[in-house]
C-alpha cells in the first residue's frame, strides 16, 4: 500500500475537506492506484537536474509604482455569502 486510510484522513484535514467513511475508503483505493503509478519516477535518476517550475524565464515583472484605481468595495463584496457592506462576515474566530 502506498497510502493508508489514516494518511488520507490526515491529508484531507490539511486540505480542509471532510470526507465520509465511504469517501475515505474510495479515495484510499484510488489514491493508492495513482501513487503506485507515479512511483514510476523512482526509475529515473534526477541527481543534479535543476527543477522547472515555469517554462518561461520571466524575472521580476515590475510595474511603475503609481497609485491606480482598484476594485470598488461594493463590487469586491458583491459575491460574499455574508457581508455587511464593509467587510466579509465569518463565524466567530476567537471565543
Amino acid at each position, binding site marked *: 500500500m502506498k497510502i493508508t486510510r489514516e494518511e488520507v484522513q490526515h491529508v484531507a484535514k490539511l486540505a480542509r*475537506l471532510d470526507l465520509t467513511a465511504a469517501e475515505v475508503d474510495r479515495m484510499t483505493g484510488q489514491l493508492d492506484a495513482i501513487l503506485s*503509478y507515479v512511483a514510476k519516477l523512482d526509475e529515473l535518476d534526477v541527481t543534479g*537536474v535543476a527543477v522547472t517550475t*515555469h*517554462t518561461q524565464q520571466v524575472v521580476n515583472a515590475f510595474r511603475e509604482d503609481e497609485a491606480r484605481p482598484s*476594485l470598488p468595495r461594493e*463590487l469586491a463584496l*458583491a*459575491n460574499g455569502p455574508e457581508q455587511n457592506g464593509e467587510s466579509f462576515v465569518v463565524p466567530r474566530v476567537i471565543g
Partner: protein
Amino acid sequence: MELYALTLHEAASLLEQGEVSSVALTESVLGRIEAVEPKVQAYLALDQEGALRQAEQADLNRKNGQVGPLCGIPLAIKDVLCTTSMPTTCGSRILEHFIAPYNATVVTKLADAGSVLLGKLAMDEFAMGSTSENCAFQTPHNPWKLGYVAGGSSGGSAAAVAADQCFASLGSDTGGSIRQPASLCGTVGMKPTYGRVSRYGLVAFASSLDQVGPLTKDVRDCALMMNAVSGYDPHDSTSIKLEVPDFTAALQDGLKGVRIGIPKEYFGEGLDSEVDRTVRDGIAMLQEAGAEMVEVTLPHTEYCVAVYYLIAPAEASSNLARFDGVRYGYRDRSADTLIEMYNRSRSQGFGDEVKRRILIGTYALSSGYYDAFYKKASQARTLIKEDFAKAFASCDLMVSPVTPTPAWKIGDKADDPLALYLSDILTLSANLAGIPGMSVPCGFNNQGLPIGMQLQAAHFNEEILLRAAYNLEQRAGVAGKKPVIA
C-alpha cells in the same frame, strides 16, 4: 447553406460585403442552438437578449465604419473565463451563482474585436477531466455520436463548434483540454505557447500549465481567433512581451523545406489501429505537400503522466484553497466555527475529481513527501522540456496522434481515474514544456468518429503549426464535413 453552418471567415466575408447582418447571423445560430442544444448540451449559460443587442450594435458600428476584425461574429467561451454579464461557474457547485467583478482579458479582447458573446460552455469541474463528465450540471455529448463523450475538459467548447452552435469558441488547456476535445469532436484546436495569451480572468487550475486558446471550424478561423486573443497583458505577469504576427500570413500552400519530426514514442503500445493508420495517412499528405520527414525521439515521454499528475494537482491544491466560503461561492450555513465552515463548504461544494486532485496535490506537497514527489516531478519536468529542445534541433515541428483512441461512450471510464489520466499521455508534455500544440481533423474511424492529428512546435512558433495544419486540411478532405445530430 444555413448561415450557422458557415465558417467564421466565410461569415466575416458576407458581413463585409453587406450580404448579411450580424443580427441575421446571431438569429441563425440561436435557432440552431434551440434545435440541437437539448441533445448536445454544450451551453451552461446562454444570453440570447444580450447577444442580439450586441449584434445590433455591431451592425450599427459597421455602418459607422467602426469595424473590428471579428465585428458581428457570434462566439462562445468556456465557463472558466470571467465575465461580468453572465455567471462563471467553472462547472462547479461551489461557484454556481458567482458573477465575476471583471472580465477576463481574452473576453475584453474578443469584445474589442467586435464579436458577439452568445454564452458560456460546459466543462469538467475546474477543468479537471478528459470527458466533461465531471461537470456538476450536465455532460455535453459528442455531436458526431450522441451518447459518446465530447472530450474534456473543454468538451462544451468543442461540441458547440462541431454542432454549429457558435462560429468559434475559446477553451483552456492545462494538459490537453483544448486539443483532446477538438480531436474527439473533429474541430481545430490550438493550445498556444505558455505566455502567448493572457491568463488574467482565467480561473486558475495549474498556473504554470494553463493556457487559453481557440477551437474553430477550420485552420483559417484558428488563425483569426489567435490574432484576436494573443499578446502581452500587464495584468498577467507571465504573459510575454512579444510582437503578435498576423497568423493568417502563415497559411501558405506547400511545405517545401519544412522538416517534420515523428516522435516514435507517440506511436507506441495502446494506440488504436485506426488512429494509427489515419494519422500515418495524414503524415503522407504532409509529405506530398513537400515536407521532409525525420524520426525524432522524446525519451522521457513515458514519465509525463506521472510528472503531470503530481505537478498539476499540487498547483491545483494551492489554487483551490481560495474557495473557502468567505469571499465568494458556496457557504455551508450550519457551521459554528470558521474551520467547520471551511471544511463543510468545500466538501459540499467540490465534486469527486476535484477532491481527488486536491488530496493528491496536498499529499505531494506535504512535509516528508515534498522531495520525493513534487520536487522530483519538477526535476523530471526539466528532462521532458530538454527532450523537446533536442528534438526541435532537427525538425521544425512534430506530428503525432492527439489521443490514443477516438471518443468513447459516456460512463465507460468514469469510475477509473487512473485509466483516464493515462489517456492524456500524448498531450501532457506540451504543457509541461510550455510549447504550442494543435489538433487538426485528419479523418474518421469506421464508426464515423473523428480522429485528429497533433502538431507541436518550439516556443512561440504557432505559425509553423498553422502552416502545416492548413496544408493537411487542404488534402485530408474532412473540412466542411458536418455531423448529423440525431
